[in-house]
């Protein structure tokens, strides 16, 4: 009887204790970590559901609380309950709240808009059919002088004329061209004296396009564009403008499109950016890494203090995403690859400094003592026992960093850091999805090739 009360008392006491403060019963029974863990877990879940404020989720801390009392009672009897159950209650609440906070709503997906973007992306603007151009122009004076020269030009069997020979803004002119390709679509546009093209179509916002007859001639009327003299220093001074005729036809084969050329330039800029950044970072990281190597610096309090400071700085620097650093450098040195390069370099100094210092910390002291024992001097020891041990991993880490930097460089372009990323954001802004798709392909290609090359190189080094 007395035996029974002796075992019953801690059972009741633990149950009550845990009912008042979750985990207290377990704590008093000597299971300190369990007790504290239960209390903390309970409080975190409770705080979360109170903050979120949806009554449904109050079930979770209540169930955990009930389990905690049950566990305390069982523990007093010598048997702990599995923590899988409260873990499940906690995770159910966490994921349930997470689902609602993230506003997951698949009905929002708009397939029409998606297709409008994706369809042009199936035709990346990288190459285009090669074409021939047949271009002809004729000068015309605007405004008229007292004796305007004839508005007529002959070139390679083609003749273009304007009647009359000159005109003021808004006046009608008759243009004629002969000797062009027959039955071919021909664009006609105006060019002012400083070389800017002006449209001649409806409302001066569209290209005037006509087709030549079977003899390769066409005649039409145009109006001198209203903006023809906008750029002129003195609108009363007669100057020569030009009327252009342009025809295109396929020439067989393919060539790089304008966007394609830009993509290549951007890719080159991005790879160079990463290369320069990695090189620059290496120059700074090598000396820093020696200062950040514990085994070299723990000798006396001064060097140890240097070690702690350098390590802390590297850690802080490394924790700032290069994207953020890039935004700062864009402000300092302006838009372009230089800003991106500096950002990548700064972040890489920290990353490489840490990796290098770990290499130095991990070198085998055996060869050092063996080479010292041969009577070698300090420099010879470094050359024959230290350098052979650190060069291959240093090189491997540097290549790896370059690989990472190329990827980061594409993203850094998005915030104005130049290279292919900058091209990408520009193309997205003007809704050129064919160009965007060309950029995607280029990025994927670069990353895959680089990944392979860097892995192969590192494999040979380590």
């Amino acid at each position, binding site marked *: 009887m007395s035996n029974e009360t002796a075992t019953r008392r801690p059972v009741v006491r633990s149950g009550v204790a845990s009912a008042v403060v979750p985990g207290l019963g377990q704590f008093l029974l000597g299971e300190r970590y369990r007790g504290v863990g239960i209390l903390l877990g309970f409080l975190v879940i409770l705080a979360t559901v109170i903050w979120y404020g949806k009554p449904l989720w109050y079930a979770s801390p209540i169930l955990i609380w009930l389990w905690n009392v049950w566990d305390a009672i069982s523990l007093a009897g010598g048997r702990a309950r599995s923590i899988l159950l409260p873990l499940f209650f906690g995770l159910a609440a966490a994921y349930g709240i997470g689902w609602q906070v993230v506003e997951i709503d698949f009905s929002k997906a708009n397939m029409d808009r998606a297709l409008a973007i994706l369809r042009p992306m199936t035709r990346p603007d990288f190459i285009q059919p090669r074409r021939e151009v047949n271009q002809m122009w004729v000068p015309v004076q605007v405004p008229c002088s007292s004796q305007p020269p004839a508005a007529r030009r002959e070139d390679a069997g083609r003749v273009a004329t304007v009647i009359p020979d000159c005109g003021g803004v808004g006046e009608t002119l008759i243009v004629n061209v002969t000797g062009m390709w027959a039955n071919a679509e021909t664009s006609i546009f105006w060019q002012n004296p400083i070389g800017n093209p002006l449209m001649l179509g409806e409302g001066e916002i569209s290209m005037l396009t006509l087709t030549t007859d079977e003899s390769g001639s066409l005649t039409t009327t145009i109006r001198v564009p209203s903006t023809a003299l906008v750029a002129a220093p003195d609108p009363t001074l007669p100057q020569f403008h030009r009327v252009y005729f342009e025809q295109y036809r396929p020439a067989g084969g393919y060539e790089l499109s304008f966007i394609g050329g830009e993509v290549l330039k951007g890719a080159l800029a991005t790879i160079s950016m990463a290369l320069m950044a990695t090189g620059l970072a290496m120059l700074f990281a090598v000396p820093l890494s020696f200062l950040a190597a514990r085994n070299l610096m723990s000798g006396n309090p001064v060097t140890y203090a240097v070690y702690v400071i350098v390590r802390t700085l590297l850690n802080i620097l490394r924790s700032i995403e290069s994207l953020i650093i890039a935004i700062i450098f864009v402000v300092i040195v302006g838009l372009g690859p230089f800003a991106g390069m500096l950002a990548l370099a700064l972040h890489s100094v920290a990353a490489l400094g840490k990796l290098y210092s770990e290499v130095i910390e991990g070198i*085998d002291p*055996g*060869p050092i*003592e*063996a*080479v*010292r*024992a*041969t*009577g*070698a*001097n300090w*420099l*010879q020891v470094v*050359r*024959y*026992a230290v350098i*052979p*041990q650190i060069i*291959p991993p240093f090189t491997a880490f540097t290549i790896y960093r370059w690989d990472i930097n190329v990827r980061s460089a594409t993203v850094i372009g998005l915030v104005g850091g130049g290279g292919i990323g900058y091209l990408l954001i520009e193309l997205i802004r003007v809704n050129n999805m064919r160009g965007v798709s060309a950029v995607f392909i280029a990025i994927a290609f670069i990353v895959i090739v680089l990944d392979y090359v860097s892995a192969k190189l590192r494999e040979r080094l380590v």
Partner: protein
Amino acid sequence: MLKIQNLSKTYPNGTQALKNVSFDVKDGEFLVVIGLSGSGKSTLLRCINRLIEPTEGKIFWDDVDITAAPPAELRRIRRKIGMVFQQFNLVKRSSVMTNVLSGRLGYVNPWTSLLGIWAQEDKQRALQALDRVGIADKAYSRADALSGGQQQRVGIARALMQDPKLILADEPVASLDPVLSHSILQYLEGLNKEGITVICSLHFLDLVHRYATRVVALKDGVKVFEGSAKEIDRAKFKEIYGEEAQEVRAASL
């Protein structure tokens, strides 16, 4: 003649590795140092070429005080003392050839050696040294591509490059199996017969009996025995090694 007088070593953390150890080593001896791990064997060997600076005491080698040698002279002394290590201490990523050539660093022009340029004569010598330990065909392999026994032979070839008068061997066979142990020690024995003094620390009683011309035993940094190998019987061995002696002997079979 190597004279060790009242040698003591206390590490900065307060560990006393050697306590007032004195003994002489005559030229041409194969002196074996025995004792438990931590008894001070490694410290003793490293004090002789001052890889570890002794706290007190003196070491004379042919009447030159090694312990008082300034750095340049110390390097000249070291180049005549070859050293072989338990863990071989090769630069794993370098070629066998480079590892062996590094034994010559005390002799060559420091500046050309920094550029990695070696005289044809030194390369020839390295190949001869490798040939002597039977692995000339491995000269251009990476050191870590070799087996343990082969790596230790590279270690011996490196020591040979120093044209040594004395070889310090710090448990040269503790990382090898018994068969390989004999082959390595036979190389050292061969060198000893050519007149090179050998100081070698060993663990196994039968190896001690087989190779030692004289034995010094250390226990907790104190010299507890000095004499011929024959005087070391099982009882003595057990006294030096404590109760673990049985196991050690069994393992050596």
